[in-house]
């Protein structure tokens, strides 16, 4: 136990979600009379266990609403777990956010003392530190102004300068990097580096991949209240990519369906399009099937697709005309299925397919269905490139 700073065992946290606004006596009584619960339980964390070693820089990664902040609040002792246990070995910072308790009606100076008291400093101790805090925040001229007249950047600087004075063995840091400009981020990084050199234990929640990769020794990935992966930051971030992609895909599917555009005279109609699977791994052949139904006869129609990336930019287009595929005569009432097989050199991300069919000269569109279906690419090790063409790198020396 000596080298363990935090031990979390089988912790679950349930929240009451009221069905309607029921924080009044009347509804409480009414609900009792009807013997109906005015709420349902929602699990924010389910059976979470992990350990943080002393001196470790420990990252928590996960999308919004996955339970990261709940976890941090449990560690900080702000929430109590519904079941399970949390053991903390050492002195813990009591706060998880910067500038807690800042009051806009007080001056900068008064806020420093108030915030200091919240961190557990006496007025005397604060008087000793006051000058350092102000110098570090570079706000000397503004200390006697009310906080409401500060810019948000100035407020964060002040809060940060106070927060780093906190003398504790275990620090909980939630999303500090989301605010502040480049200079401030640099200060944060410097501070983290200093923490890393020292022997503090840090639990760090961030969406900043750079910071996670640079500072964390170990990470957990939290999704829907469960730890789905533990390990070194690089691997966790890759896995995090996949998870977020899946979720974005699900959320956007319904949204996209409503947003789809379609035009054409429907002499030939696009009835359906499918990919063989929803997600393709590197070097897996991408197969797309588009089904058509003809209502009028047509001579040598042109079938094609456009593939767009998540920003809506076309990354690949092809059709039967440029590829010189003979499509022949289509009779009224005939069904046609077009099969596309494409090498997967696309980078990680989500893509849409817009199938189209036009006349021989491609000046009359029979049917165009914008962004009809979607597929995902995941699993490439190098996330910094848009395409992955086969390539070789060779060296010659001497």
């Amino acid at each position, binding site marked *: 136990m000596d080298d363990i700073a935090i031990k979390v065992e089988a912790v679950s946290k349930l929240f009451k979600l009221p069905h309607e606004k029921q*924080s009044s006596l009347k509804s409480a009584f009414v609900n009792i009379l009807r013997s109906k619960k005015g709420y349902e339980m929602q699990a924010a964390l389910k059976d979470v266990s992990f350990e943080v070693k002393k001196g470790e820089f420990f990252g928590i990664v996960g999308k919004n609403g996955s339970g990261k902040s709940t976890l941090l609040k449990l560690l*900080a002792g702000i*929430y109590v777990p519904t079941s399970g246990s949390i053991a903390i070995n050492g002195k813990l910072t009591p706060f998880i956010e910067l500038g807690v308790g800042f009051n806009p009606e007080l001056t900068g100076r008064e806020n420093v003392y108030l915030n200091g*008291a*919240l961190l557990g400093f*006496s007025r005397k101790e604060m008087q000793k530190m006051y000058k350092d805090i102000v110098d570090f925040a570079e706000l000397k001229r503004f200390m006697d102004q009310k906080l409401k007249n500060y810019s948000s950047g100035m407020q964060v600087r002040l809060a940060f300068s106070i927060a780093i004075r906190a003398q504790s063995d275990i620090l909980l840091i939630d999303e500090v990097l989301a605010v502040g400009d480049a200079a401030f981020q640099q200060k944060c990084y410097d501070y983290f580096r200093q923490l890393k050199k020292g022997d503090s234990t840090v639990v760090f929640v961030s969406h900043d991949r750079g910071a996670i990769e640079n500072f964390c020794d170990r990470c957990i990935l939290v999704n829907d209240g469960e730890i789905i992966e533990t390990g070194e930051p690089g691997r966790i971030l890759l896995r995090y990519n996949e998870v977020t992609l899946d979720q974005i895909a699900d959320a956007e599917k319904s949204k996209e369906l409503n947003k789809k555009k379609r035009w054409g005279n429907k002499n030939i109609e696009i009835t359906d399009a499918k990919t063989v699977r929803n997600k393709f791994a590197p070097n897996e052949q991408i197969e797309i099937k588009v089904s058509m139904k003809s209502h009028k006869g047509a001579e040598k129609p042109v079938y094609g697709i456009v593939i767009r990336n998540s920003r809506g930019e076309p990354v690949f287009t092809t059709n039967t005309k440029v590829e010189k595929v003979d499509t022949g005569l289509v009779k009224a009432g005939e069904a046609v299925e077009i099969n596309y097989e494409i090498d997967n050199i696309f980078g990680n991300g989500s893509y849409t397919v817009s199938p189209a069919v036009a006349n021989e000269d491609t000046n009359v569109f029979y049917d165009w269905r914008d962004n009809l279906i979607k597929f995902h690419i995941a699993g490439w090790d190098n996330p910094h490139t848009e395409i992955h063409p086969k390539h070789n790198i060779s060296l010659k020396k001497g």
Partner: protein
Amino acid sequence: MRHIFSKKNRALLAELVRTDFKLRYQGSVLGYAWSLLRPLLLFLILYAVFVRMLKIGSSLPHFPVYLLLGIVIWNFFNEMTAQSLGSIVGRGDLIRKIRIPRWIIVLSSSISALINLFLNLLVVVVFLVANHVDLLRTTLWLPIILLEVYILALGLSLFLSAAFVKFRDINYIWEVILQAGFYLTPILYPITLIHNLTFQKIIMLNPMSQAIQDARYSAVTHQSRTVYQVFNGGIYALIPFAIVITVFIVGVTYFRSQSKYFAEEI
């Protein structure tokens, strides 16, 4: 619980009280002077209505000071409970983001009320002197009576502030109870005005009636009728004190059982 008054908690308490005080009269021209002016003006109105126009209490010596002391004590009780009631919800920003002992928040708002009480008592002293009230030896009891009121108000504050997190109707209900209490307590009228002896007894069971009458007895005039006299020294005279102790224990117990869940329920 051993660390209730640790150095850290004391520093935090002091800082919260200081903030409270700074914010209270912010932006007003007279500032802190309002702490004194408010009870003074209220007293003048009540004095004009009850002493000059309705001529109540002419049978009691020093009735204006008698009236003032009652108002000051009631106001303290009123202000402390009403402010503490909303204190936990009002400080939701802290509770959701930082681990500090929750009771410190209620305590800080109670101390703000205490400070006001002492300022108001200064006004009472001025009137005592101006009215040539003889200094009574029993005045030494006054702090103990005030302590009793404080303990009662603290118990209620803890209970109400915790309940308010769950039930937001509490503040309206409490407002009505305070209003009713103001008239059910012999503040504006001498208790002797009530001729029905049973009513008199019931009214005197209220700890606030008991405390206010005792305070007047000890500091203004021995003609103030106390619970001891009403019950002829029977065991019933102890009921108000029993109520105070019960309220305090219930308040502390309820607050302790609920405070764990404040962060998620606010």
